[in-house]
Structures are given as C-alpha cells and as structure tokens.
C-alpha cells in the first residue's frame, strides 16, 4: 500500500504531465487552480486521470472545495 507521501508525489507527477509543467515545479501545498492556471472543468479532467491511475472512484462531493494537492492526496489516500 502506498504511503500518503507516495500518493502525493504521484498526483504531482500526473498533474505536471497533464498540464505540461516541470515536475519539480509543483509542491503539495500549491493551489492547483492558481499554480496550473486551470479552471474547474480542467480540474475535473485531472480528477478523472487520477481516478484511472489509482483505480478508484472519487465522488464529486469528496473534492468539493479542495484546491491544494495535499488535501486532494489525503482524500485519495482514504479511498486506497
């Protein structure tokens, strides 16, 4: 089973790949809307990619109001 740290790193990698930014430029505390310059729909796209990667289903309400990678990772970790 992955640790929270591993989960967080994998999310950062997925986000960096999807939105074509350097992997090292993203930090767990970053606000992904701001850092990646994305809107709520692009965030949903990222979520779909994360679901496929971790093979989980994350209901929309679970990520309501979440805007940083760290909290997102915690929500995902709780479903692994």
């Amino acid at each position: 089973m992955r640790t929270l740290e591993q989960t967080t790193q994998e999310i950062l990698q997925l986000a960096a790949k999807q939105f074509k930014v350097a992997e090292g430029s993203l930090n767990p505390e970053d606000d992904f809307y701001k850092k990646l310059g994305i809107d709520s729909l692009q965030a949903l796209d990222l979520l779909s990619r994360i679901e496929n990667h971790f093979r989980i289903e994350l209901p929309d309400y679970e990520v309501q109001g979440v805007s940083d990678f760290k909290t997102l990772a915690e929500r995902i970790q709780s479903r692994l």
Partner: protein
Amino acid sequence: MLDLSKFSSIGEALREALETYATDVCLIESDRNEEKLRLTYRDFKERAVALAKWLQDTGFAVGDRAAIIMTNQSKWLISAYAIFHNGGTLVPLDYKLKPEEQWQLLKHSGSSVLITEYPIWRQLSNAPGREAATGIKKVLVTEAPAEADLFGAMTWEAAKAGGTPEFVPRTRQDLACIVYSSGTGGIPKGCMMTHGNYLEQCVALTSLYPFWPGVRYLSILPTNHAIDFMVGFFGPFTCGAAVVHLRTLRPEYVREAFVKYQITYVSLVPLVLKNLQKGLQARFDELPPSKRWTLEALRNINKTLTRKQPRLGLSRRLLKDVHSAFGGQLRAIIVGGAFTEPQTLQFFYDLGIPVANGYGLTEAGTAVTVNDLKPFRADTVGKPLPGMEVRIVNPDAEGIGQVCVRSKTVMAGYLDDEEMTAEAIVDGWLQTGDMGRFDHTGHLQLFGRRKNMIVTEEGKNVYAEDVESAFEGLPVKEFCVFAENYIWPSHSMVGEKLLLVVNLGTGQAFPEELKNLIIARNNRLMNYKRVHGIVVHNEDFPLTASLKAVRPRLAERLRKLDRDAVIVTV
C-alpha cells in the same frame, strides 16, 4: 403544456402536472455509466406525497421555510414538491458554498427544516456556525450509509407517512422561494420570489423554448440556481417533459449523456460552453485535410441557409456527425449565469446548434431578455421576453445607460432588508446595475456594470464587499475590495476581476511579507472569490460618519491613476 393562467401557486401547477402526465417519464438519474433511477410522474407523486404527509404530521405548516442543500438529483425535486404541497417556502442553497456560509444563510432565511445529503451534512455538522442557526428544528439526510453517525439528523428515506396530505393553497402574491443571489461573507441578499413570479416567468420562457412530453432536459447547472430551477424543474414538469440528472459532472460522462439520453435541451454556464467549443475545435483540427475542407464547406452552406432562422432538420442532415455527437436531438443550448462571448455563440450557431443566450438576474425572476433566433444575433442578449418592460435610464451620448426592468416576474424584495429593497426597486422598476442600450431592431446590448461586483464565467456573482472579511486584521491602515471594472469601466462583461486596495500610511513602502500575507489570505477564499491584484494607495480613504469607506468617491479618485502601472498582480 398546462395552462398556467389557471393556477395560483407552483404547488398547484405541479400537483396538476403529476396527474396529467402520470405515465410519462419525469426523471432519469445516472451515475457514470449506470442508470440508477427512472421515475414516471406517478412514481414521483408517490414519493413526494409520502414526504409531504410526514412533514405535515410533524408540524410543518403554511409559510414555514425549508432549505435544500443538495447536488442535482431526484430527491431535490421530490423534496421541493413536498414543501410546496404544504404551502411552505423553499430556500434553495448552493451546495458549493463553504459550511459556515451555508449556516449563515440557513440562519438568515429563518428555515426550520433542512434537507441535505449525508456528505454535506457531515461537513456542516462539524463546522462553526451551527450553534447560531437555532431555527433549524429538523434535518433530513439522503444517502446516509448504514450505521453512520447522523449528528442529530434523520434519514430522508425514513421521513415518509401513509395517507393523503392535505394540499395547502397559496396565492400568487405569497412567498414561494427565498433565493440568495449572493451575500455570503457580507450582507445576505435573499430574493423573495413569489408564486406569481415563477408562473409568469415559465409562460414567458416556454413561449420561445417549448417543452412537451418526450423532451429531455439535461440538468447540469445546480438546481438551486434560478435557471435550472425554472428550465430543469418547473418548466419541464408543467409540460410533461423529463429531466436527466447526472451524479458526476466529469466531461466524459456529460458527453456520453447527450447521446445515451438523446438530450433535447441543456443549460450551461459560459465556461462549460467554451470548453465544449474547445473540444470540438480540437477534433476538427485533427481531421485529415480533405475531411476538414468538407466540414468547412458544409458549415458555410449551413451558415447561409440558416441566416434568417434556425433550420434544425437541415442542419442535422448537413452536419450529421457533429449533431450525432450531441445525440441528434438537441434543439438548443441555453446559456446563462454570466455573459457569453459572441464568437462562442456564433461557433455553435454556424454548426446548426442554436444557443439561447439572454440576460437576466435572480431579482428579475431569471431571464429578462432572450435571443429569439429570428434572426440569431451573437452580438446582443436578445429582446425582452413577453411581459417584460425594459428601459435604459440616463443614457449617455452613445445611448448607454442603466438597464431597468418592470414585470410580474420581479421579486417582492430582499428578505429583512427594506433599505436594500428600496434601492433596488424604485417606483416598481428594478435597477439592475447593468449598463446597456437597445439597437434599432430592439435587441439589448450590454456594456459593463455600475455595481461593485463581478460575475465569473462559471456564473458566480461575487460582490466586492463580501470578500473583505478574508482580509480583516491585515497590518495596513485601511483596505477595500473593488471590482476592477467599477474603478476603470471597460464596457465589457468578460474577464472581470477583483482588486484589493490598501492604504499603508503616507510614504510607507509595500513589504514583500505583506504581499505574501495577502496571498495566503487570498488563497483561503474559494478560487472564484479571489482578488487578482493589489493597489497600494497611501492616501486616507473618504469615510462615512460611521467610518466606512465611501466607495464611489474612493473609486473616482483611483480612476485617475494609471491602471496598468498601479496594479500588483498576485
């Protein structure tokens, strides 16, 4: 469609619809690839009446207020009908608000009943503010897991009683809903909407965009939003149409739903519409040159043949693949909640997909003007709907002035705020705060706002004052939040931004630590409420006797500054 002139209330009209269209499908609920629920009007009635009876037995009486905080789903509409059946007032709240904001509005609305979903309730019950909302006597939660701690609530599923609940009649003047157009974090603006407001609006809208049994409306905008409440509930129900709810709004499932359910209408905010445009354009760009050339040719033919009015059958034949991707039955996309860029509207119209763009605000009972498509005009927000009187007040040399509206759809006022109501409705005319003019064909064009607010592409209204609490306690002499357009009017309603203006004291520099502190505070706000820039203005703000900043005077002073030079982007 039912003859709505016969009815005095939403509840009465819906009750009739449940009988008239008993065997037609009214609701379909899908989660990802799986259809979870399909109800006929008769099934709906069975469920709603059982809840209505339970509410009645537990003392919910005429005029009592009940709030709903739910994502789009069948139980939202069932609960709403049960409230109306009992002569109650519905308070639809945004499930996307923060829990403390929801508590604030629950308290302000005077709701005694709350109907919500378990995950939302779990957050609400642990959030500050609950102790202040003491008026909430009963909480019903849907989808609670077995054995879950309900934090004092009871399950929605258990709230049913046998027997026939008495139907409680209401008049057209009675309060039907309290709809919050904004106000979280500041002064709540609870629009008091009457039954007459909704009945009149429904007649006006369906005269241009009719529903009938067999029509399928895809409900994506939150149902608490005035548009979805009208075109995703009351409108289709009074015409015997069906509403499709999706439990997840990931773009891939939304795309599938169009095809799977042969959607007739959908309402979107501009952000989603633009996303659809982007997706389609990317697919067009990937086509081999010969196919791209053919598509262009067909699009041009369609454009020529639909110049005067839409010709759906023809467009579907000409651009078969595009229309098939939308299920082949789409008649129009309704766009609302914010201003849409003309080039996006034109993109869809050229493909034979009319976009019903318009202009409206909650205070006016949703839509004021809508494009009647005769002909389609991407550069305007259409003509006034039947029953709407719209005039331009104090026009300047270019004919641009404040848009004012008088109609039976205009709200009764703001809840518990006579002063704000008197400012908003003058001699029966709603002062919208939006600037516009009519062209020679009677179409309304919009040119910015005179209100200190922004509307995001996601359809969120954000008043500058409501964001200020996030910056309380900053080590500055004084501060104020403004809409950039309010200080420097740009005649545009897209890309609106908020600014934080700070006074550090005469001659004081702007330290990096303060900037970082502001950024940290800013990041605590929901993304659509954040300020995009800081203006350092080390001159004392003009103040009222109660020491509040006089915003119009301060804005006037700031207007003289060079915008590009003074804004520090965050």
